[in-house]
Structures are given as C-alpha cells and as structure tokens.
C-alpha cells in the first residue's frame, strides 16, 4: 500500500479523491443540484448495492477460474458450463428437499466431482499442452451446453430462497428526508442479496487465509509461481492439481446456486458467466485472488451503474474497461509482470 503510494503519488491522489467522493455520495444527503444532475439518490444507491452484490457473485465464479488458470495454465472455457450445471443441480435439490441451504453443498460436491473427472480423464492426458487443453474445454462446453439444453429445456428456472431470507431489510443508508416530518428515509434492500454478499466475502477471506496461511496454500502458491520446480522438490503436484480443480469447479457450481437465487438459470447463462469471469480475470490479473475480487467489484459496479445511467451501452462499458486495462497494464491490475 505505502509502496504503491510512494511509486505513484499522482494516481494515489486521484484514487483517494474518487473514493472520498464515492463515500460522500453514499453517506451524505444529496443536495438538490446533484439530484437534478443524475437523478435520485435511491436509484444511485441501488445501483451501487446491486453492483457490489453482483460483484460478489462474479467473484465466486471468477475465483475458481483464476485459481485453475494460475496453477495449471488451463483456461477452462467450460467454467460457465460448470456454473450452469451447479445451478440446475441446486434447483433440483432445493425443490426436492425443500431446503435451500442443502443445495449449496450438494452443488459444490457434485460439480467438484465432475471437475475431478475432467482433470483426471481429460486434462492429465494432455499436460503441458495449454492450447490443446483450452480447445478441449471449448468442446466440452459445447457438448455440455447441448446436453443441459436437452435435459432441462430452454425454460427459466428460479431457485426460491427460504422465507427467512425473502423480503427487504432496512439498511442504515439515508436516501432522503421526509418533507412533512423531517425524518430520515432509510434504504431497504433484499435481505438475500446482503446475505449472499456476506457469504462471498467470507469465502473470499477464507480462500485468502487458506492460500496465505496454510501448508496447502503454500504448495498452491509455489505451483502458481513455478510448477516444474515445485514438482522437482517432491511435492505431489498431481494431487494439488486435482484438489484445486475440484475446488474451483465446486465454487463455480455453488455460484450457480447463488445465481439461480439472484437471477435465474437458463441456457446462455453459461456463456454470460464465462465472459464475465474472463473479463474479471483479465482486469484483475490472472491467478490472483485479490485481483479477482477487485476485478469482480469493478465489473459488477460498471455493469449496474452502466445499466442505470446509460442503459444502451452498459455491456460495452465492461469491455471498454477491459480494453483500457489491457492497453496500459496487460498483466491486469493485480497481476505480476512476466
């Protein structure tokens, strides 16, 4: 942090000003001229909240993607299909058992097991051939997309959260003042989104701790830096590979359940989330968990704020961010050069 400020004093100042303005816009009661300029505060706050929670969902999908990529140099273009598979499985489980929470571990385990199969029977056969692995993942995603379309059809599926999670919650963010009584109006927000955001933060922190504070994490980080050297020191790298692939796939599956609750599950969502995680990972930097978190929040915010304030080109905005990042920092915001 201090090193960054020392090296880029101007950029740090700009970022500081932007963050200060953002915090002021979130907490202050907006004066009339601002409302006249960009609309009511409630809309703005909603966009920010939706963006951050969407970023949480993107983080869940992209963190597995970036972990797999960082360790195995395998661009898993079937990652979106794993997400969609997790969503369908979660829907079935939640519908069958009636317990929303059970859907998460089941989706995690089933999709993770599928990931193990993929790693053992497909990717291990062509280790070191990055391009071929990527092509195979494209083939797998085509086949999986069609199989899932075959089984579940083209309908939209919604996973219903349990009753204690449905409905709005009062937050402590003030959106305005009542003209008649002078009371503050507080913003209300769907509780399920808040819970899911909290869960993804917990998962993110847990992943960071696992990677940076444990023996296994040390192995994984060493593998990300130099795969060959790690295997030369006698680490059982194949086990690490299988474990990471299963974990990444399982996260994607769990994210599918979250996505099914948030939005809906339908054919085509696989490509959407694959693209989202691609952009998130490119912006954040390949193989970096903090990068994935940063990228996910940036892309989520850009998408939501874009769709509120300039709806026609909201999607293009995210790609524009990606192009700008690529042009100035090809390794991503948190990625390491080389």
């Amino acid at each position: 942090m201090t090193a960054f400020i020392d090296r880029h004093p101007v950029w740090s100042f700009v970022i500081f000003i932007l963050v200060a303005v953002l915090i002021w816009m979130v907490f202050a009661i907006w004066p009339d001229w601002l409302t006249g300029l960009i609309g009511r505060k409630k809309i703005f706050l909603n966009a920010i909240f939706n963006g951050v929670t969407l970023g949480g969902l993107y983080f869940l999908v992209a963190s597995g993607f970036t972990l797999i990529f960082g360790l195995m140099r395998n661009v898993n273009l079937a990652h979106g299909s794993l997400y969609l598979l997790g969503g369908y499985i979660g829907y079935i489980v939640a519908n069958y058992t009636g317990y929303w929470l059970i859907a998460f571990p089941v989706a995690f385990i089933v999709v993770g097991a599928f990931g193990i199969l993929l790693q053992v029977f497909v990717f291990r056969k062509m280790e070191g051939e990055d391009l071929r692995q990527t092509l195979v993942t494209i083939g797998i995603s085509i086949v999986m997309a069609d199989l899932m379309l075959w089984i579940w059809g083209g309908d939209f599926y919604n996973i219903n959260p349990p009753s204690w999670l449905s409905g709005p919650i009062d937050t402590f963010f003030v959106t305005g003042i009542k003209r008649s009584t002078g009371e503050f109006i507080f913003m209300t927000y769907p509780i399920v989104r808040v819970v899911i955001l909290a869960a993804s933060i917990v998962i993110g922190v847990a992943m960071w701790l696992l990677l940076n504070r444990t023996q296994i994490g040390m192995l994984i980080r060493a593998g990300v830096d130099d795969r060959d050297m790690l295997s030369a020191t006698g680490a059982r790298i194949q086990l690490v590979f299988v474990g990471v692939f299963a974990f990444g796939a399982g996260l994607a599956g769990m994210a599918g359940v979250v996505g099914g609750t948030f939005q809906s599950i339908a054919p085509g969502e696989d490509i959407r989330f694959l693209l989202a995680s691609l952009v998130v990972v490119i912006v954040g930097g390949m193989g970096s968990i903090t990068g994935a978190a940063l990228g996910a929040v940036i892309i989520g915010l850009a998408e939501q704020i874009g769709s509120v304030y300039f709806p026609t080109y909201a999607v293009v905005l995210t790609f524009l961010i990606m192009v700008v990042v690529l042009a100035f920092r090809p390794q991503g915001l948190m990625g390491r050069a080389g």
Partner: protein
Amino acid sequence: MTVAAQNDLGGRPEPRSGTSAAAGTVAVLAPWYERVPGAYWIVGFLLLIMPLLASDFTLFQIFGWTFILGMIALSLMLLAGYGGMVSLVQMTVATLAGYMIAIFGTSAITGISLGWPWWITIPLALIIAMIFGTAVGALAVRTEGIYTIMITLAIASAFFYFTRQNYVIFNGFSGFNGVLPPKLFGVDWRSAKAFYYLTLFWAAVSYFVVLYISRAPFGLALQGVRDNPRRMAALGFNVFAHRVAAYAFAALIAGIAGILLTWQSAQVSPGTGGIGPVIDILVITVIGGTRRPVGPFIGAFIYVILKTFAIDILISMGLSGDRFQLLIGISFLLIVFFSPDGILGLWDRWNENRRRDPLTGQAVVREGGET
C-alpha cells in the same frame, strides 16, 4: 513445422537469387503447368465443372457456404498456423465488413443505408474491416498464447453486444436485410451458378495468396516468430510488426468472406457474429487442421455437410433433429483428442505410414506433390 515440410505443398522449388547454381536451376525448370501437382488439376477441374453435376441448392448453399466459411477459417489458419496466434475475432471482422456493405450500400433499411455505389462501398468496407482487425491485433499481440484466445473472445462478444444494442448505426437486434450484390456485367450474382463461381474465385485467390505468403519472406519470418520470437527479435526482425501485419492481412481475407456471406444470406445481424459462429470458426479450423491452407476448406466442408444433413443423420440414429451442436461438439472433441492437427494431420500420418518401408521401418524420402 519446418520450412522443408512447407515445400512439399506444391513441390515448387524456391529460386534463390545470388548463387549461380540456383540461377541454373531456374533455367532448367519444367514449364509451370508441369510443376503444378496433379491433384491441383483434378480438384480444379472438378470444381470448375461442378455446376454441371450439382443442383442449385448444392452449389449455393453447400459449396458457396463452404467457400465462405473456409475463407474465414483460412484467415484464422494464417494467424494460428503460421503466426501461432489463435484469434477468435475473425468472424467478427467478417461481420463488420458485412455491416459496412449494408450501411454504405443498399439494404431494405433505407433509413440507415446510404446507398453508395459498389465501387466505393466494397473497398471502404474492406478498409474498415482491416483497420478493425489491425487494431484488435495490436491489442491482442500484447498477450501470448491462451491469453490471446481470451482477449479476442472478449472483444468478439463486445462487438456482438454492441451491435445488438446500437440502433443508430447497426440497427440493433434485427440488423439489415435485403443486402444484395450489385448487378455487375448484367449478372445476378445471387443466382446459384454465378454465386458459386464468385465464391470459388475468391476462395481460390485467398488460398493461393496464403500459400504464396507462407513461402514468401514475410511468411517465413512469421513462422520464425511463431517458433522463437526472441531469436527472431535478436536477428533484427520486428516481431510486433510481423504479428500485426498478419492480423491486418487476415482481416482482409475475413472481410472479403464477410461481404460474400452477407450477400449469400442477403442479411447481416448481430447473430452473424455471435458467440456461436465465432466458436464455430475455431471448430472448423481445428477440425480441418492448421498445417496447410487447404485444411480450413476441408473443415468448412465437413461442418457445412454436418450442419445441412445433421437432422437426417440424427434421426437415423434415433435422436431428435436439434442435437446438431452435440454432434459438432463431440466430433470436435474427438479430433482434438486423437489428432490435434486435424484431418490434415490424420492424412499426413496415414501417408507417412503408407510410405514407410515395411521391412526397415524407415520412411521413404517423400517426393512431394500431394495436397
């Protein structure tokens, strides 16, 4: 792939200037028509008389489409096979050229189309497609290998979403219809036979140009850059410029194909360059093989045949007709699994085995000449 392996494409020795021995070789070379291998004559003759043999549907839908998709895949093959850069943006470049033809030329959307004559719109469309392809290339070559796939895929989908949302220039979701080729020389170029020869001509031109480039100094330098960029840079070649130039040239081929594609279906819409078609071009190229320029056309032919007759095949197998993607996906997987260099690789290996001496197991020296 080495340069020596390249030479067996046409079996044409390369004249080297500077040495007297090489000058002597050039003098005693057989006339050009004897140096062209027999397979070229047969395939060329068959393709030329095809209108006598095939129905209009086959000519227009199967062969026309094969040539067009083959050209787009050829532009990818040029980048991937010779340059080592797998770009998923070629279909997007083709779509952009199609859009430009519709916007500057005539279409049923008279509110947007400018209605300029063909001799302005076609060069303009190609130039814009090339500028776009070059810009994407300049961005994509900052990255390497699999990163290139990710970035070009992201750019391709950005283009798809942009054209779908933009109603002022690209007419949004529905795109343009009624985009017809000009009635040049009084010929209706959308009639089956004329369109067949039109696409055949451009496919042949781009095929031979790519073949020529693969042996020209530029192509050889590009293959050197693919194999070892650092060494080429040390030798004084501008690696960046070679790669971007390859993108620019590939964009030209894709642009021509895009215009033809727009004329064939008489419409262009965001779906023309959607994620599906973008991936399909990669599938076609990989199925055909990226070793030689003929691969993409083989891949395109297989793809078109599958796409056209998949319903019959699937129904005969007892499945419902709309499992086409499954069929394509599984054949793609099988190819990548068992022959990463596509059908061409299978063919080469089969050939090599056939020529192997059964006793010693040594390969007999290849004389070259097969395609």
